[in-house]
């Protein structure tokens, strides 16, 4: 198990280095353009040249990357070209917002998807038909349209929740929950529709297996069969979908954060990329890579825990 974990962490580290290196090479290959972006269109050639030197953009890109990596190991991601604020400080205020949205969405996605997916597979009938319909609708309607509809209904028409904004968890927990209800719902509808459908399919596959029939003929209760045997075996594809869903969520929150004006990573990524705030962009990329790596490790571990076959493979 330890070897399995170490192998995963090592491959995660390699992935992180490869992704950040490629990103760095792509965006740092034109120091003059970066300096021009920072200084604006009225800057003279002399000012641009001075800025290039000041930011160290005149050095070889590979050397710049290794410097960035060295600083990263000391917890230093540089400072924003535009606000001169340490990127680590910027991330410290943004990450909790995005993680709140992603983790709460993921928790409810998992909970509801498993319940609805299993129920639809086991009971069939109207529940299954409804899930089919909702899955198609959920996949067809973009989450920003759902978000706008939710704001119209529950913030403007019936003012139950704030239309925009975020409150820190440690500042006011109830207000934190309140500020997240509509954004989470906007994410949840599409995510649940997709994941529940996957869980349903996986459960149906497992329930049709010979060993399930054998268990039934031995008089083992349905509850035991479903939760002890079927769900464990159906968990693998479901968990894979959830890990993909998490990665997709990281992209989806960019839009949701903008619609609800949540000051999270999504908004930061958009702004930093448009402004050419390269240190902030690199901080964003690093965060996303780490999330993807960590989620994959967790999914592999959980998969191995619930399904011994996965552990062996």
């Amino acid at each position, binding site marked *: 198990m330890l070897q399995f974990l170490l192998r995963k962490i090592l491959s995660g580290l390699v992935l992180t280095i490869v992704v950040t290196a490629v990103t760095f090479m792509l965006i740092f290959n034109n120091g003059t353009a970066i300096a*021009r972006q920072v200084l604006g269109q009225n800057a003279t050639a002399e*000012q641009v040249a001075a800025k290039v030197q000041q930011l160290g953009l005149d050095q070889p890109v590979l050397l710049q990357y290794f410097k960035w990596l060295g600083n990263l190991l000391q917890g230093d991601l540089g400072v924003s070209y535009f*606000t001169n604020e340490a990127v680590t400080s910027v991330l410290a205020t943004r990450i909790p917002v995005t993680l709140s949205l992603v983790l709460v969405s993921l928790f409810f996605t998992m909970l509801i998807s498993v319940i609805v997916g299993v129920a639809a597979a086991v009971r069939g009938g109207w529940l299954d038909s409804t899930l089919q319909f909702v899955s198609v609708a959920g996949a067809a309607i973009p989450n920003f349209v759902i978000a*706008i509809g939710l704001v119209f209904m529950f913030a403007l028409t019936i*003012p139950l929740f*704030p239309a925009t904004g975020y409150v820190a968890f440690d500042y006011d927990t109830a207000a934190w929950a309140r500020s997240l209800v509509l954004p989470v719902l906007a994410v949840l509808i599409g995510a649940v529709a997709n994941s529940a459908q996957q869980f349903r399919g996986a459960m149906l596959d497992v329930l049709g297996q010979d060993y399930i029939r054998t268990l039934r003929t031995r008089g083992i209760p349905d509850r035991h069969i479903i939760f002890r045997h079927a769900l464990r075996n159906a968990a693998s594809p479901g968990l894979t979908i959830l890990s993909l869903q998490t990665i997709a969520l990281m992209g989806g929150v960019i839009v949701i954060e*903008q619609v609800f*004006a949540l000051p999270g990573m999504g908004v930061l990524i958009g702004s930093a990329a448009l*402004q050419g705030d390269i240190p902030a962009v690199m901080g964003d990329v690093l965060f996303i890579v780490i999330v993807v790596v960590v989620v994959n490790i967790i999914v592999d571990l959980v998969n191995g825990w619930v399904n011994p076959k996965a552990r062996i493979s």
Partner: protein
Amino acid sequence: MTELSRRNFSKTILFTGLSAVMLSAAACSPKDASGGANGGASNKTLTLAVDADYIGFDPAKQQSGGTVVQIWQAVWDTLLKYNPDGEIVPNLAESFEMNDDNTVLTMKLRAGVKFTDGTAVDAAAAKASIEHMKTGGGSDASRVAKLTVEAPDATTLVLTSPEPNGLMPTFMCLSTGIVASTASLTAANRDQMPVGSGPYTLDAAATTTGATYSFVRNPNYWNKDAFPFEKVAFKILLDITARVSALKSGQVNAAPATSQTSAELKGSGLNLVENKVNWAGLFLGDRNGKTIPALGQVKVRQAMNMVFDRAGIIKALFQGNGSVTNQIFNDKSEAFLPDAINQYPFDVEKAKSLMAEAGFGDGFDLTIPSLNGLDYANPIITQQLGLLNIRVTEKKLSGGTAILEILSGKYPVFFFTLESRTALWDIVQALAPDAVWNITKDQDPALTPLINKAQTLKGAEAKANAQAINKFLIDNAWFSPWALPTAFYATDKATAASPVLGSVVPYLFTFTAK
């Protein structure tokens, strides 16, 4: 399905329901600390939405355009200021005077004003601020780069330009006229902690960089009556949907709007402040025909003016919000010529005959740039110029160098919306031989003397000269302007604000509670 499994699922559904109820209970809590719903002029807090990221509080990095102007106006005074109608009036400087040839601007500073750190606002501090702007790496630095600044005594500030510069007073109304505490200019935390003499001071505890900037009243402000609100907060709301939602739900008192949302906002009973700050249309560079000989022909450029249905374009691109123009000067500018507005009517046949007369009846090849956010007019350009056999190819530009490529003159023809303020401002930014927006650095022996004179003339002579310049531009089709689109800014029922010449948002001192 057995009875047991049914009960199991009933329990599960019950659990889900309970989870939802618990979440709703937390969600419906009346306590709201979102910081956005505390707006409302009634309690003397003004909450404004800002549609762009704020660059931080280093005075040298402040910009004169866009919505972020409102943020720095909360904390710093400028030496002079614009009235809503564009007139330049005293501010921190209680009087100002230009010499005859517009090379020296002398300002007398108000006595007894202090920064919020307790130090005096004097000529030395104003000089230090302008010097900091010159060398601080901000995008507005070039406006004061050539000026010499002197402070002969505590209340006198003298700016000297090596050549006539009639825009010096204008620059003192913008970010280049900001006066900040001298100590704050070199402080390590100058991006986070501004120190000015303005109407408000930053409330750092209630501020989250990149999301919300909160200010409380400066109790010693010298012009308190001009700012009726006890607190001002700015919320960065980049997305128009978020701004509309925040405005309609009362989370902000005012927000930048768009042409597309103006009808919805009006229908919701909100006030709309309208202003025409840009002209929209085609830049026609290379008027000497160095790289594209056809563009050197006046008749070709005139034909390129007559092939566009300006009224139709306003309906199609700006939802009918704007007015037709064929001039780069706004309709309040002293250079504007209302009688010349129909000089190039939409007439494709006439345009074709002009092309033929110029010897370009078979047209020519033209590459136009396609920029994110400004490519919406390109299909119209391609289609309409195609009627003159001008074969248009689009070149996609993106990233930080896009504008730089445009300014390099590589693409002489492109669609753009460019800010228009006073006549002299527009002349300096778009016409002078070294102007940033004279992208192909074109000159004309008939035009250059008029441009040179513009820097020194005053009053009626300045107006006549500006109109002569405009007439030259129209007659020689130096541009193909289509419209003066309306810029919208929305306020709630309890808040009023006035448009300011050349600004997409009302300045902070124009806000009042109804």
